[in-house]
């Protein structure tokens, strides 16, 4: 397959074309807003294309390791055990996006159950570790989001 230019480079070039060629030719304000939104979405997807496989794979392992620690430490019950089991079953050497997404979602469920258990047990240390993982996740969501304003609203 052709790997260069990379997917994110291609998406960003489409974005540039939209901004420099299409948008100036648009006179309908509603369509202009639509084009501006597409520009934003292309930026989001370029960042995702460049990193999402690596980010999800990395986070999945961290989330699962944390969930195992919580389960081993005492808090948690059947829900956490089942979520860990499901996350382990979803792990796959495949890097196809659907497989990575499935493993990521299953690991996320294990993290959710683990954090809920840590909070319910009043375990601040374990809760803090879980929050750190969630924070890292939301930080990456911010990186994907980039600059963002409510286009089209006064």
């Amino acid at each position: 397959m052709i790997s260069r230019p990379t997917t994110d480079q291609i998406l960003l070039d489409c974005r540039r074309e939209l901004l420099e060629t299409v948008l100036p030719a648009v006179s309908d304000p509603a369509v202009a807003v639509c084009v501006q939104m597409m520009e934003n979405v292309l930026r989001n997807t370029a960042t995702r294309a460049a990193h999402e496989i690596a980010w999800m794979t990395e986070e999945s392992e961290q989330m699962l390791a944390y969930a195992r620690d919580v389960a081993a430490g005492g808090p948690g019950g059947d829900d956490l055990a089942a979520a860990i089991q499901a996350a382990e079953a979803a792990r796959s050497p495949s890097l196809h996006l659907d497989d990575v997404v499935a493993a990521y979602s299953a690991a996320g469920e294990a993290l959710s159950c683990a954090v809920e258990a840590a909070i319910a047990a009043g375990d601040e240390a374990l809760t803090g570790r879980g929050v750190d993982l969630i924070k890292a996740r939301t930080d990456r969501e911010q990186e994907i989001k980039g600059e963002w304003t409510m286009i089209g609203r006064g």
Partner: protein
Amino acid sequence: MPHSLRGYRGEPALRDMDALSRGLTRLLSTEAPDRRPEVLSVRPLTGGYSRVMSRATVRWDGTEEQDVILRSDPDSSEVVYMTSRITEWKLLRVLTAARAVPMPAALYYDDGTHLGTETIVLDCCPGSSLHAAAQADGADLAGHALAVADALAAIHLTDLSLVEGVLETPASWDDYLSDLTGEWSRAERAHPESVPVLRYLGAWLSAHRPAPLGLGLVHGDFQTANIMVHGDLQVIDWEFAHIGDPREDLGWFNLYSASTSGPNLYALDPEAFLERYRARTGTSADTVNQATVTYFSVIAATRVYLDILRAAGSMAEGRAQGVMLTYNLNAVALGNFNWLSTCQALEGML
């Protein structure tokens, strides 16, 4: 908001002003035959996304003219938020009769017989919205802020026996808050992928409940665009009213003001605002303070945020499409980040 970003196209029959005029004439002639109503004009109003709004001028007895507002349900395929017009009408009737809340009088209700769709007819409040008034040159922002606190207090002091049988009464404050905080977790479990931050928020909000406050009438969409300025303030758009924790309105007012154009009348001087509110309602700083307002800002965001999340879920399952939807994923990302930061900032304050 809770307004969708989706543009409203309007229910076809309600775009026909002549038909609307004839229907209104029939309604008024039925409701007030002795006053010989004559509809002089009907024109559409913009700005409302959830209901179809029109303004009509009516002449009574051949002499007295009155402007009225028609608040109609849109076509069912275009309903963004499911609320009941008959419930809203019943609520507005009892509030109008009690004169306890600053609001335009509710006049008539049509079940669709005359106007083709459920419609409430209200007295028209002249003047501008507070959203516009607060952005005018030389606006008395501090004065507006205190007036808002007064209006909120008036709503929250409403005797709940008035709305008994009209609005559902939660069994207790504990049950009510459990339901609200549980919504984050329920929505996450219904979503096609795991979103740990939502589960954390649900657990955190439940574990860090503020001191309880008596249940009261909650407007549900208390924001400057829903407040008219005509001498005093008049509160409109009651479709989301319910019995709940009054601090929801404080949190929503703060949240909405912070995320739209125009000054945030709460954030100008939160202590002055809250001091006024507490003095009017007889509440204490133990229950109504900046921390609890922030807590309820997260609670109050539930509805709008989860609507966007559900739309994203629909797209993931192939049931929805559109660039607006993918664009709004950024709002989800922003919400995730903000709610997490808010909860961390509140640690130890509640």
